[in-house]
């Protein structure tokens, strides 16, 4: 590990040269960068899991076929269903809350700010 270098910060250095803007809304350009970097991380995590499974099998700990044919019992099935449901809720929060907001009739936050500064 390099002691004097902040390798995390330095590694993200910008390349000299103006970056093209691909979308009318720059937020979309930023979103692409994040989503693709996360796709790379997910790919790496999946590869690591595959390595683990292969090593476990190679060391006689766990045949991989057992993973493929695994069927949760009733209680494990419920635990996993709940975990999956919660996961879906997490990644879909933005959509779910926008749907709720359609009928929420919230005033702009500035109205609330001004009202509370007076009332």
């Amino acid at each position, binding site marked *: 590990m390099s002691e004097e270098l902040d*390798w995390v910060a330095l590694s993200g250095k910008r*390349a000299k040269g103006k970056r093209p803007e691909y979308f009318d809304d720059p937020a979309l350009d930023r979103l692409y960068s994040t989503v693709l970097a996360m*796709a790379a991380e997910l790919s790496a995590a999946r590869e690591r899991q595959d390595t683990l499974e292969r090593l476990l099998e190679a060391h006689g700990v766990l045949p991989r076929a057992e993973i493929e044919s695994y069927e949760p019992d009733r209680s494990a099935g419920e635990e996993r269903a709940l975990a999956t449901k919660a996961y879906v809720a997490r990644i879909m929060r933005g959509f779910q809350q926008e749907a709720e907001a359609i009928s929420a009739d919230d005033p702009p936050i500035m109205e609330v700010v001004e009202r509370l500064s007076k009332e």
Partner: protein
Amino acid sequence: MASDLPPPYTALTRHGMLPRTTHDEAARFNFLTHFNRHLSGALGAGNKQAYEQRVLPAFRAEHGREPEHRYEIRDAMNRDRWHRMWSALKRNSMEMRQHFGRQVVLRQLDELDAMAAQYNEHSGLLELDPSVDQPAYQTAVDIHCQPGGYHSEERPGDVTVGANYDVGLFATVGGALGGLNDGGGQAVVGWAKAERPDWQPKRILDIGCTVGHNAVPIAQAYPDAEVIAIDTAGASLRYAAARAASLGVTNIKFVQASGEDLSRFDDGSFDWVQTTMFLHELSATAMPRILEESFRVLAPGGLILHVEQPQYSDEMPLFEQFMRDWDAFNNNEPFWSAMHGQDLKQVMAKAGFPLDSQFTAGVRAVVDPDIFPPSPDEGEEDFGRAAIWNAYGAWKPDAAQSAQAA
């Protein structure tokens, strides 16, 4: 189906200077390798569809004629929603390749620098000249979106840019350059050996060598020759020399010098002058200067050979020219478009190589076929990065031939 899958990153040959990758660092490069293939293959086809189905018809309707230049297609395609999305994906892929590579290199820079210093102190393969100016065409933007270009330092004497170039090239070319990223140099050697089996060049000059991945195979193939590999970027040469030393190569020297000024070398002092994927990184005034200098230092009967992507010609459809131009505007390759638009044969002729001494040849990366699949063929190729090239070359006429021609 499985035969065209790229090899895993771990198939790369671990020479002494290659930065070590953790499990997940290698996995990130594996992701990019597949991502790039997906972009150029399945998704790349969408660009042509968008062009033919809506962009070209709209152009005809607006102008009442066909597009006459690749730039007209570019302007139109840059307004197309599919091409913009595709370009955004591809640009991000290039940026991730740099970021991932720099994380690998910078976290172990102390070790890499120490190792390079050891190799370079003992091998005698490195000759730096800090008085060499970095040309404007190398500093105007960071080529390939590589932060710091080929010439910058994170600290004095470091090997960051060279190491980052070497460690990530695999991902950018989809694993098509072989275990040592040297498929280009191997291809050149294969061509020369087939063309002139008994030819034994004694002195070889490689201009714009970066990390020496294409010059080292030439030195290995001609062990009795002396190879001089030059580049203006000392930061890349430090890595190049250490890399070559770690591979046990002794008949190569990495010299910091500009191809525009080869005055340190006598007239006719080389049997072979080589550039590999280099001419497109110059400028309109630098390229002819380098070719003229190459002509001067090349001995009569000697070989000059440039490996490049194909030049644009009237025979090449404008849409293909536009696709091949993508890197010029989206991946910091500012001379790419102008260079490929030139008639290289005429440029070579002006530099002294008569037209009848010139030739072109197709070369394809030479890699270990047990591990590395061939580069995807036409139709699915990743324009600008496919490991299938054109070689533009000439055998410099000797005195008798010149007299005959006159």
